[in-house]
């Protein structure tokens, strides 16, 4: 009898797969895919970010009726932060909606590497805000990659600037020991070349220490840190790796004040599991931090008050939630910009790419959008797909993140030669002819 029931169940499952229902697609919709991860070891960080993204798109639909009347249509796909699943999700979603995906945002440097070539062939821009390939800042070689607001090379430089400031000047860096505790994936390895350049320039001793995915096993790394006693430990972690690092630091009595996380290692889920042990831990800020701004009032009014929010309202305003909101806003503004040129209708990825490359948000416009205090003005161009490279440092006081520094701007003349070399190598490998930015309108 159970066997019959099981057979029936399987039959039902198979049969339901055969039924292909095509939802009636309204024509005036702009499709935006969301690659998210709400399961697995990175879900603690992936979920709040995805919630921010979804809520902002909902806000645009609920408050403004879409982008100039073009409704946003989204579909989520769970990647689990795994590269192969990310590629599958991308293939699944890239041609949905009336005009295909407007842009893609994988929230994973590994998936970004895997998609870089595909998105260029499919003509779909890939927005990697604060992550992704650092060399893709060079839009001449990477026309479809947009590492908006900051790359890992900018982050590395900002972190060292802050260390120098705490020590009392760049000359004090000489002979100091700085370790990088990194997630052993393209994400964690990305800052290494920049830190090597910086180590050579300022004369500090740089030691990279890898942590294997997913990062719950860090005992030997922290023993090495205890023996080596570096003056600072930079943390390039994600998911459970961050909170584990903080706990392990406490276990070997390494001062948390001397730890500086990248902007992906500085959110609430990274420190709260460590409790009081996390007090004093610092991290970079990708411009914005936690807290509520005018845009949040709108989200609460138009999304949460209508019961359409994707998380409990208490989590609105957390660091990663805010990052999702900022990310969605930049994408929406790029579409808006592209609509100025191509008309108020659903646009293709190629048209949105133009909007991204010509994106220019002034201080007044940012204020108008309700992001006053979260963001600085940003201007993208063909040769600069990053836009701005500013950051601050925040510190965890046991209850909330406190901003403890002024704005730093990454040293462009120092980073650019590296961007040029690495992107030129990519172009040579791919036998691709870089665009000439001076000739672009």
């Amino acid at each position, binding site marked *: 009898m159970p066997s019959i029931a099981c057979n029936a169940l399987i039959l039902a499952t198979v049969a339901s797969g055969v039924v292909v229902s095509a939802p009636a697609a309204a024509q005036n919709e702009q499709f935006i895919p969301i690659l998210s991860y709400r399961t697995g070891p990175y879900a603690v960080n992936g979920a709040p970010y995805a919630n921010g993204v979804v809520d902002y798109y909902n806000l645009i639909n609920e408050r403004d009726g879409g982008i100039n009347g073009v409704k946003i249509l989204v579909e*989520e796909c769970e990647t689990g932060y795994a590269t192969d699943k990310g*590629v599958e999700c991308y293939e*699944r979603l890239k041609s949905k909606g009336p005009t295909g995906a407007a842009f893609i945002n994988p929230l994973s440097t590994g998936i970004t590497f*895997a998609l870089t070539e595909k998105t260029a*062939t499919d003509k779909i821009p890939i927005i990697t805000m604060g992550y992704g390939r650092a060399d893709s800042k060079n839009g001449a070689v990477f026309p479809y990659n947009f590492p908006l607001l900051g790359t890992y090379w900018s982050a590395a430089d900002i972190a060292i600037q802050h260390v120098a400031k705490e020590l009392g000047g760049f000359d004090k860096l000489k002979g100091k020991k700085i370790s990088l505790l990194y997630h052993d994936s393209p994400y964690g390895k990305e800052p290494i*070349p920049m830190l090597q350049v910086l180590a050579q320039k300022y004369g500090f001793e740089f030691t990279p220490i890898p942590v294997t995915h997913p990062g719950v096993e860090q005992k030997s790394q922290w023993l090495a840190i205890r023996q080596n006693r570096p003056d600072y430990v930079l943390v390039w972690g994600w998911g459970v790796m961050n909170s584990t690092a903080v706990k392990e630091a406490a276990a070997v009595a390494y001062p948390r004040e001397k730890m500086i996380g990248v902007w992906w290692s500085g959110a609430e889920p990274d420190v709260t599991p460590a409790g009081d042990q996390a007090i004093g831990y610092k991290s970079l800020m990708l411009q914005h931090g936690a807290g509520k701004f005018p845009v949040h009032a709108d989200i609460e009014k138009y999304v949460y008050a209508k019961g359409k929010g994707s998380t409990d309202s208490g989590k609105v305003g957390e660091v990663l939630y805010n990052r999702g909101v900022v990310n969605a806003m930049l994408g929406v503004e790029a579409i808006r910009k592209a609509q100025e040129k191509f008309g108020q209708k659903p646009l293709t990825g190629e048209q949105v790419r133009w909007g991204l490359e010509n994106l220019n948000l002034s201080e007044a416009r940012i204020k108008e959008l309700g992001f006053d205090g979260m963001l600085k003005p940003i201007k993208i161009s063909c040769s600069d797909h990053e836009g701005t490279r500013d950051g601050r440092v925040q510190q965890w006081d046991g209850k909330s993140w406190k901003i403890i520094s002024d704005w730093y701007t990454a040293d462009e003349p120092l980073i650019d030669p590296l961007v040029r070399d690495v992107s030129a190598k990519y172009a040579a490998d791919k036998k691709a002819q870089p665009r000439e930015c001076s000739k672009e309108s």
Partner: protein
Amino acid sequence: MLYREAGQFKTTYVEDMAIFPIRQDRIALAVLLGIAFIGVPLLATFHIWPFGSDYLLWAILLPFLILALAAIGTNILVGYCGQISLGSGAFMAIGAYSAYKLVTGVHIPLAWLGCAISIPPLSVLASILLGGLIAAGVGILFGIPSLRIKGLYLAVATLAAQFFFDWAFLRIPWFTNYAPSGSVNAPELNFFGLIVQSPIERYLLCLLLVTLMALLAKNLVRGNLGRQWMAIRDMDIAAELIGIRPLYAKLTAFAVSSFIIGVAGALWAFVYLGSWEPLAFSIDRSLQLLFMVIIGGLGSIMGSFVGAAFILIVPIMLNLIPAELGVPLSTETIAHFEFIIFGSLICYLLIKEPHGFARLISIGKEKLRLWPFPY
């Protein structure tokens, strides 16, 4: 009635020794190959359902073909020769990274000798095949312990290969041509002037290689060598007593298996991923291949294909069904359901048929022979 070999007389040895001695099997295979080689490209060229977009080609057929090839390789070692291996992922990685090194040119300076080993960049096809050969060489090396250790202990020894190569490709920058992020890019797929780029071209390339290798494997396992492997698998002492040298039999199994897995690894990297990092060939991949072989059926080439399809496609289907039906479930819930249902399906299958799909297929054939008058 339809599937009956009565009346098919074999009058020559060639006919008797054919790979597919039953006419209906040959017809079925021809139809299958016809669909794969002609039907799919035709449908895809004219964008006829279900080939409206590249999704089916890119995200399902391409990975299916390549993983099926890797599963065939694993099956030769695990299913035919009985040597449990947890290092298939590592051999895929060796194939991928060797092919990458060969296609970009190898330069090893030997300072103490005052000379250098230099190999100019090779063509893509030569690199892929040589990548397979290098994997075969390494396979032999890691197969040597199999002469002394058996069963689960060997599995642990091959696990060492997995971890060693994971480490090597992650830590030794030479293998990745000193790429800053450790992620490397596949070269342009140039086959004698023909540039393989679109999904359909990639599909045909993989299909061709997979068909050739599957035929090669099918032929090998029913020949002298295959019989030696199976003898070793069934009882190594008895095999030794009837004059089979375990050294030769086991190491050839390791070599052939690693070669096929290596080629699959190179294809996975070059044709499917395009840009990869060692995580693409982690222990998860090894386990995935082992499960494909177990579910598909140990000691069956056909089973490797079915196992690959089951492990790769069923989770994707499970994930797609709620969205296609318009059931409003969050991606989180769908992902959890996917795990629950897929896990129960595996349990159900292995309880009902421990010998996997291959056994189900042969039972089906037996029943078909008697149909419609079973006794």
